[in-house]
């Protein structure tokens, strides 16, 4: 009903190609997050879906209709802008009701829609104020209210939380997720923050340099990254990567004489002498006695801690393996002195191998 489909969509600015032929299918009611570093083309793609940018090639359809040349107002979409884009000379009430009054809806209908949106977003006391008199978070909520008032097919969010402080951001994230659960429309959300992507999305679309690198659920991207870019972008702290060479298809030789067995996921898929990146997350490297009790292949490493970052329920430990700085986690932490030597356990089942030349994951 309100699915969105992109077929081979291209965007060119003169000679420069910003988006290279992307294909994407978004199901009705899905919350999809486009995420990636600055300049990856995610905002451009969103704006093409909205109709604020011309499409240089390919096709975009919303709800089964091709919308390539249609202006935004004929696509039945709503958008929440990064800078809120509130109408400065109108009150909150007028801002909310503007689109409906343009559509010449009856006054009673406008009033009830505005009231409903205000209730959902807690704007009742701000109705007569002008945007200049609102705080950042309040403006953000008015921008969202303006979007929901029209009951469109698709909601588009363009980095809506970037301008808020950290605490407000986490609050608003929850609001947005609740909104989706309540209202249920298709949402396409753009952000550069992978935490937002992980917490909000039904599916994540990770983009880079105008291409889609991987599409999948948050856990899919977290547990089965398709290359080192995905692996290091998703998850905080980023995945540790150590250079190594495969020896005899069973063992990976890292520098300094350290070697680790090839993880089960990659067994049989590597060749002798292949240069690889060996990857594991901080969660998979924990000191003995301060880790999760889990079955599985483990390797023991004696490492000396260089730096600690206590977070309360856990502590991030910085240490070194084979000359590369890596991060590990410590549960039920006790104070650790820099330079202290601990025995760490590496969960081999959770480790990843990436081909060094192509950066792609080697996985069965």
């Amino acid at each position, binding site marked *: 009903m309100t699915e969105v489909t992109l077929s081979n969509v291209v965007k060119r600015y003169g000679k420069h190609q910003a988006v290279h032929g992307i294909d994407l299918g978004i199901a009705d009611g899905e919350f999809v997050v486009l995420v990636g570093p600055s300049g990856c083309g995610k905002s451009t793609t969103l704006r093409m879906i909205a109709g604020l940018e011309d499409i240089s090639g390919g096709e975009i359809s919303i709800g089964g209709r*091709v*919308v*390539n*040349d*249609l*202006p935004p107002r*004929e696509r039945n979409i709503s958008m929440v802008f990064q800078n809120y884009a509130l109408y400065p000379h109108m009150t909150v009430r007028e801002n909310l009701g503007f689109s409906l009054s343009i559509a010449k809806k009856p006054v009673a209908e406008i009033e009830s829609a505005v009231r409903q949106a205000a209730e959902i977003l807690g704007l009742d006391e701000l109705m007569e104020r002008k945007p200049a008199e609102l705080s950042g978070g309040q403006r953000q909520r008015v921008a969202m209210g303006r979007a929901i008032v029209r009951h469109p097919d698709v909601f588009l969010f363009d980095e809506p939380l970037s301008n808020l402080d950290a605490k407000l951001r986490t609050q608003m994230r929850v609001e947005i997720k609740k909104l989706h659960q309540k209202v249920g429309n298709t949402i396409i959300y753009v952000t550069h923050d992978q935490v937002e992507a992980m917490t909000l999305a039904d599916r994540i679309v990770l983009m880079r340099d105008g291409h889609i690198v991987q599409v999948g659920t948050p856990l899919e991207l977290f547990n089965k990254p398709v290359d080192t870019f995905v692996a290091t972008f998703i998850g905080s702290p980023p995945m540790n990567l150590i250079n190594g060479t495969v020896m005899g298809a069973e063992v990976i030789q890292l520098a300094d004489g350290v070697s680790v067995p090839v993880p089960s996921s990659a067994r049989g898929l590597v060749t002798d002498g292949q240069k690889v990146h060996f990857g594991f997350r901080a969660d998979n490297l924990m000191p003995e006695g301060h880790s999760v009790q889990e079955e599985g292949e483990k390797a023991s490493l004696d490492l000396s801690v260089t730096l600690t970052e206590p977070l309360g329920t856990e502590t991030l430990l910085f240490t070194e393996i084979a000359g590369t700085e890596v991060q590990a986690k410590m549960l039920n932490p006790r104070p650790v002195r820099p330079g202290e030597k601990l025995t760490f356990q590496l969960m081999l089942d959770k480790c990843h191998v990436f081909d060094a030349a192509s950066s792609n994951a080697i996985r069965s």
Partner: protein
Amino acid sequence: MDRNQSHRNRKRMLKALHFAALFMTMSIICIPGLWIVLNSFRPTVEIMAKPPVWTPSFTLEHYRAMFGGAGEGGVPVFSYFRNSIIVSVVSTLIAILIGMSGGYAFARYRFKGKAGYFVGLMLFRAVPGVALSLPLFIVFARVGIIDTHLGLILAYVAMNVPFTIWLTDGFFRQIPKELHEAAEIDGCNRWQAFWRVEFPVARSGVASAAIFAFLTSWNEFALASQLTRSVGSKTMPVGLLDFTAEFTINWGGMCALAVLMIVPALILTFLVQKHLIAGLTFGGVKG
């Protein structure tokens, strides 16, 4: 599919219309001036030809006559030009000095009745030149400065000061007070702090104000026509009117004179178009 097509077509049509309208507008703006320039190079015979001749021929006869001085019944072009230059440059310099100090006063100081003074000054600018010329003529006649450079310069300074104050006030406000304070801490007295720190930063604003003042003086007619009597002090606008009144069929010559009048102004415009816009809007918007 059909809706997409119709929108595409509309976009193309609008683009074409947009281009056409812009082209027409620019033409209307440029054609009169170009026509004058063109005709200053056409022989009188051709200008007066009936039916009209459309292929232009080229001649410098008008310019030669004009600069020859003796010909064309003796149009003292050089005198007019000289008078205009002297009066405009001097009045601009004085107006800038007075205006800058006034603008600085408004920008940096607080004092009672400030708003009142400001509005009062601006209102003086609203007095039509023609209305002012009547009493000014009588007063200047009494004082004996009719038909002198001094008389015109005085009048133009007074005319330009309010606007100059307005512009420089706007520009000085843009400069943070801290700059001046930092300079004073560094050892400057007020005077030095101004000339070595604030003035250089406001230079473009002062330049805009200077350009405006110059152009206002250069192009002014109403006052000049009454405060000048002879070739000794008549400026170019007055000269053009005199010429037009006297030689009703020497269009080529008149065009040549007009070209001479417009050239300095156009050159100035080219050089400072960025500053001009800044000048017009700074003073007005932030104000």
